[in-house]
Every structure is written in C-alpha cells, then in structure tokens.
C-alpha cells in the first residue's frame, strides 16, 4: 500500500535549542500513529512541523493528495498550505478552547469548516451540525448554546466534531485527552476509536499516555530529547521495549 505522508530527516530548531532532530516516518491511509514521550521530548514540535504549522529547519514532508499527486509541503505557498489544511486535513488541539470559536454557537462551530468549503445552505448546515453533535454524544438541543457553557469533555467532543465534519483524510491530534477526568477520557477515546474506524481516517496523535497509544495506535514512535529512540508496533514497544528510555517509560506506568 502506498503511503499518505512521508517525513524525511525532519528537524526543527529554536535558535540553538533542538525541537526535533532527524525524524523520518511514513503514514499509510487509515492508520493511526502515536508519538509518545515526556514533556519536552519534542513530540508537539514534531507534530506542528509535520502539519506545516511550524517551518522545518531542514528535511522534508511530502503528502499524497486525493488526486494521487504528491505535494512537497516546504514548496507550497502559505495560501496553498491553508487550503490543504481546510480541505484535506484536520487538527485537534489539547485545549479545546484553542481549536473552537468560543463566541459563536456549538452549531456554528461545527458548520464553520463546511462553510469554508463553500457550503451555504443554512438548513442543510444545521442538519449536518445536529447529526455531528449526536455523533459525539452532545445533546442536539444544545446546538445554539455557546461552547463556554460546556464542560471540558463536551468542548473536546465539540472540537472533534468540528474537525471531522469535513471528512478530512489526515488528522493531527495533540494530546486530545490530556487534562480530562479519566471517565471523560475513556468516552473521548472510545469516540475517536470508532470515528477513526468508521471514516477510515489517517491520524498522527501526540500523547504522553502509553495506554492511549495501546488503545488507538497500531504503530508508535518514542521520542526523547527531540530524537526518535524507538519505533515499531505499539504492542511490541510496550511489551518488549528495547531502548533504555522506553524501558523506563513503560516501567513507570502505574497499573491497576
């Protein structure tokens, strides 16, 4: 099967400080890949650089479009990158307040990305928004309420609806369940798991939580100090970690 995304020797520095260094990986259609590591390991920098929200210091990111045509992201204009993000990608941030528009209704938050793609029919937009609220288990009667009146877990589910409503081919997620209560987390993870399967999404997810990687991702990348120290099947990495840092991570998890 042919890859959807190819990352080659990607580095991003902040002045003299290393964000991420010499990272290569491929992502196939319909596959969810987790990037794990502690805070400061460079995983969010890597995600943002791959998603073209930060410009790389060196290396390349290639993306295969719906048309089958390969794009070299570094060679795109800002306008083309924005169009790609709007039409074929989605991004879910850790804090839903960063990914939502807080001053408009829940329904408008879901509809906005569709409108950006040119859909204008109000009743159709409202119909789709209702459907997506139900899909992420938000009572559709809350469609006209502002997200500020929602709990953190509801806001995160709303952000997921807002991101997936355009049926993106590739989704980037930065710690989508961090900072939520465990019961709320379980609901969001179950939701993501189902939606990824139903929609055949490809996704790259950053998490510090190895249990999240085990639940959602067939493959995992482990980062330390900006570099990839281990990569492979998630169950292999968690059950038979090879690198000292991965062994430390795995052995530090509390099991109940």
């Amino acid at each position, binding site marked *: 099967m042919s890859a959807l995304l190819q990352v080659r020797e990607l580095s991003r520095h902040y002045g003299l400080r290393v964000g991420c260094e010499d990272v290569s990986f491929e992502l*196939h259609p319909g596959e969810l890949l987790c990037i794990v590591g502690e805070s400061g390991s460079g995983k969010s920098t890597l995600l943002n650089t791959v998603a073209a929200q930060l410009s790389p210091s060196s290396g390349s990111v290639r993306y295969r479009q719906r048309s089958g045509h390969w794009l070299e992201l570094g060679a795109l204009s800002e306008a083309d990158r924005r169009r790609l993000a709007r039409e074929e990608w989605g991004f879910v941030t850790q804090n839903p307040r960063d990914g939502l528009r807080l001053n408009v209704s829940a329904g408008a938050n879901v509809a906005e990305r569709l409108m950006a793609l040119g859909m204008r029919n109000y009743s159709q937009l409202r119909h789709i928004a209702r459907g997506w609220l139900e899909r992420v288990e938000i009572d559709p009667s809350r469609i006209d309420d502002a997200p500020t009146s929602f709990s953190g877990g509801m806001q995160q589910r709303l952000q997921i609806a807002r991101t997936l409503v355009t049926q993106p081919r590739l989704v980037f997620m930065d710690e989508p369940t961090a900072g939520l209560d465990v019961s709320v987390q379980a*609901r969001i993870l*179950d939701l993501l798991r189902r939606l990824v399967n139903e929609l055949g999404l490809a996704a790259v997810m950053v998490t510090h939580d190895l249990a999240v990687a085990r*639940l959602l991702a*067939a493959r995992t990348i482990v980062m330390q100090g900006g570099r990839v120290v281990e990569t*492979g*099947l998630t169950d*292999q990495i968690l*059950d038979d970690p090879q690198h000292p840092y991965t*062994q430390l991570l795995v052995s530090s998890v509390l099991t109940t």
Partner: protein
Amino acid sequence: MTAALMLELRDLSKSFELHHQHGARLNVLRGLDLRLHAGECVVLSGPSGAGKSTLLRVIYANYRPSFGVVHVRHDDRWIDLAKATPHEVLDVRRRTLAYVSQFLRVIPRVPALDIVAEPLLQTGVDGPQARDRAGDLLRRLNVPERLWALPPSTFSGGEQQRVNIARGLIVRRPILLLDEPTASLDAENRDVVAQLLAEARAAGSAVLGIFHDEDMRDRVATRLFPMQALEAA
C-alpha cells in the same frame, strides 16, 4: 499427502536486556527449532519459567527475537516475522496468525459482542454479519445473551476468557497460538473449546498452545514439544 508446513522456527533465541536493572540479561530461549504443520496441535510442555509464553509472543511478533528465523506461511509465500515491517506483521496477524492469551484486554465502553466481532470487521466483513457470527460463537461458549451488550470489565474471569476465545477464533486463521485459553473455565466450557479447536484443525488450521490442565492437553494435543528453563538446563 503430507500436511503443509505452516510455521518454521530456526535457531530462535530470545534474551531480555534490562537497562535499569544494572543491565541484567535474561536468556529465555536459545537455539530453538520447531516445525508446525496444518491440522496438528502441538502443545508446549515444561515447568513455569521454561519460556513457553515467551515463545508464543515471539512468534506473534509481540516480542522481538534476539536471533533466528520465524517463518510463517502467509498467502502461500513465506514471511520471516523477525525481519518483517510493522505493516507486514499487521497483515499477517489480520489474516494468518491468531493469538489468544489468558487475559482479555478490556476496552472501556465497548460491548462484548463488538469486541468479539472486531477482528472480522477488520477483514472487511460488514457489521451485521460480523455481529451475527460473534453472537453464534458467544452462544456456543455459553456466554449469556444478556451480557453481550455490556463491556466485559465487570464479567467474571471465566466469562472474560470465553469472550477472548471467541474474539481469537472468529476469523478462521491458519495458525492459532493459544496461551492457557482455558485456565479459568469449567469442564463444560473446556469441552466447547476442545470442540472448537478440533473444528479449526479439521478446517486446516495449525495450533500451537500451552495447556496446563493435563486432561485438556491429552484431548487436544497431537504432539508435545518439551521445553526447559535455560538457566537450569
């Protein structure tokens, strides 16, 4: 006609290097050779610590071998899982290699029926058909129908184990790896599992397993493969 060779291990070794335990090294398997044919059921025998579970996990590519070859027949070609890419391993697991452990890995909020149906869905079978088949298996394994819609986290050990067996057997895969799948089952349910294994073998699957229960071992094994702990050997 002799039965087709399905799995071949050559000179297989596995050690664990524990970087945070002063670099301790545990040698669990060394120079192991094994051949498994379609229709046979080879039972690994030997004391605890002999590496039986480790061997099954190495074959499933859950553990990485330190040395040697894990040849698996996959769509009539041979793949060495010791060298295969993650995507190749995933495809082999989806269609050729099943692994059933003692313990069900529970997924929060997912009902038993869906946990069982999932491997079949992943082979492209549609939802209703996969759930029908999952229901058939759960019924055969005497899991009461009122439990099917519930997540198995609150089930008894034996019920969870039966859900796990159903999940492992729902896709007919040519090689079955079984790590004590009947440890918490009563006699009646062990009978059902023995029958299911006999049916899988009759349909051409090769089985490699660990069964501590002697009665169960005698019923299912066509051959024993003795193993010993390396440090004691």
